[in-house]
């Protein structure tokens, strides 16, 4: 667990980066710090591993005051990933990943073996280890950055806009990977971003900062979206925050019925029972079947896109289980939204 207690940071030029911050970041959870640039979120993150020293207040990692520890040793015990990956261009990927183990005094063989293991963990091919960072794509470099941070198996991981510089497709992949990794590793992660969608996707808790280093609200994503503390938070979350909330709910509870027969549109199945397309007298249109685990937002989207207004539901193997109507989905979405408000209240 990471605890901030009345932490202030004022830079020598007089600007206050963090103002009276008290915040707990629970163990084994992802806390996302979000806000526009200059709101103190990165400074907050960098105070945890003493890349920035607080002006006053205390910061504890697992009960120990960080300022009472040797800065270099503290940093070796905390994983650190930055935006441009910051890989060492003169070292191979494998040696980059082995950085912290080597600093901790492991022998080279053991450090390299550990690094090779991590290449696989972050989804890179083994032969990438012999390459140099500039020979990798931006997304691959970021994976190496994550592997380097994980090398000594630190309980805490600090990530400073790690996916900020990659294209949206790769960004989504990296977010999925991080969620998968986190399920396995259960680290205490502090993640800085200015992207609300990224925060909602990754965060167990989201802390919203306002310019001047003020923490405005810290809550689980659903609560934040349903009950923003003030206009600033509501504005920051954007006009579609109702839809964003639906991205956190699954389709599972929406009722489904049998697929229609003899209407304008027929759902055509393959011999195994998997949906192929929607068919009418004149034409065929594609179908995008959804599983129970898919979000209500995806269901709402598909109900609009589907020519029949029906969403095809499938099981884990892709076999049709039934269809849900546009109205059912809409009603359920409305209920889910008001339920979130009530729970939050």
């Amino acid at each position, binding site marked *: 667990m990471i605890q901030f207690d009345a932490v202030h940071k004022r830079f020598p030029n007089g600007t206050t980066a963090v103002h009276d911050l008290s915040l707990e970041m629970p163990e084994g959870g992802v806390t996302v710090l979000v806000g526009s640039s200059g709101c103190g979120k990165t400074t907050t993150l960098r105070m945890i591993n003493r890349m920035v020293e607080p002006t006053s207040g205390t910061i504890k990692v697992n009960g120990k005051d960080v300022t009472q520890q040797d800065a*270099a040793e503290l*940093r070796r015990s905390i994983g*650190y990933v*930055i935006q*441009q990956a910051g890989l060492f*261009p003169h070292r191979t990927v494998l040696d980059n990943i082995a950085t*912290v183990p080597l*600093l901790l005094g492991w022998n080279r063989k053991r450090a390299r073996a550990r690094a090779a293991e991590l290449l696989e963990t972050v989804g890179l091919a083994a032969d990438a280890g012999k390459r140099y960072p*500039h020979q990798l794509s931006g997304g691959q470099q970021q994976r190496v950055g994550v592997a380097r941070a994980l090398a000594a198996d630190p309980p805490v991981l600090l990530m400073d806009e790690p996916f900020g510089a990659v294209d949206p497709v790769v960004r989504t992949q990296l977010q999925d990977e991080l969620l998968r990794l986190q399920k396995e590793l259960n680290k205490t992660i502090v993640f800085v971003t200015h992207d609300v969608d990224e925060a909602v996707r990754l965060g167990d808790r989201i802390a919203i900062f306002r310019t001047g280093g003020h923490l405005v609200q810290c809550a689980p994503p659903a609560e934040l979206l349903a009950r923003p503390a003030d206009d600033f938070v509501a504005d920051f979350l954007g006009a579609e925050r109702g839809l964003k909330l639906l991205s956190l709910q699954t389709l599972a509870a929406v009722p489904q019925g049998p697929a229609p027969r003899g209407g304008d549109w027929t759902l055509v199945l393959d011999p195994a029972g998997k949906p192929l397309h929607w068919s009418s007298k004149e034409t065929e249109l594609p179908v995008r079947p959804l599983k129970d685990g898919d979000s209500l937002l995806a269901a709402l989207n598909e109900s609009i896109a589907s020519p029949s207004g029906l969403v095809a539901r499938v099981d884990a193997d892709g076999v049709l289980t039934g269809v849900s109507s546009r109205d059912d989905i809409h009603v359920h979405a409305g209920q889910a939204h008001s339920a979130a408000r009530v729970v939050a209240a």
Partner: protein
Amino acid sequence: MFELFKNLGTWLTSGSQWAGQDGIAHRLGEHLQYSLLATLIAAAIGLPLGLLIGHTGKGAFVAINLASFGRALPTVGLVVLVFLAGGLSMLPVYVALVALAVPAIVTNTYAGMTAVDPDVKDAARGQGMRGHQVLLQVELPLALPLIMTGLRLALIQVVATATIAAYVSFGGLGRYVFDGLAQRDLVQVLGGAVLVAVVAVVLDLLLSSLQRFLFRHRTA
């Protein structure tokens, strides 16, 4: 004109010209000895200075002003000055050559250090490297291509200027230039000058191909 070059060719290729105490081989050896020793001393002064300024970010004005100082320095004047102050020895020559070489080494080392990506330095510190580890494991290796360029430039300048050893009665390839001038032997002057130029160019080519080989994995 053609006659001059023909005589120069004979001068450069005759066996007797290469042998003996006053021969080209011996003078070349002396010249290289002066140059390498002066560059080595300059490196021992300039490298730590450049690394220190680059690592701490303090005293950058020293590195920058040293460059213009180096360009403005009258080498022969310096030789004469130290000669007058300290008497006849190789000391004035070495002082002048070292003073010529230090600025190129300091400014290039400093430039190499400042060119290291701040994100990479930040990451190095963030992974838990101490100051000297950041310097030795990250900054120095990354600055090395520019540091080597500085050493190369310094050596070439020193080789070209080491002719002044002969000015205060010592050896090296400058002997031919100054003796030739005194004897109004144009072929000898030209021969000495050509030899110095060839040594400088050859050293430059050797060192730059060494650099290319060492840093073949680097991008820019």
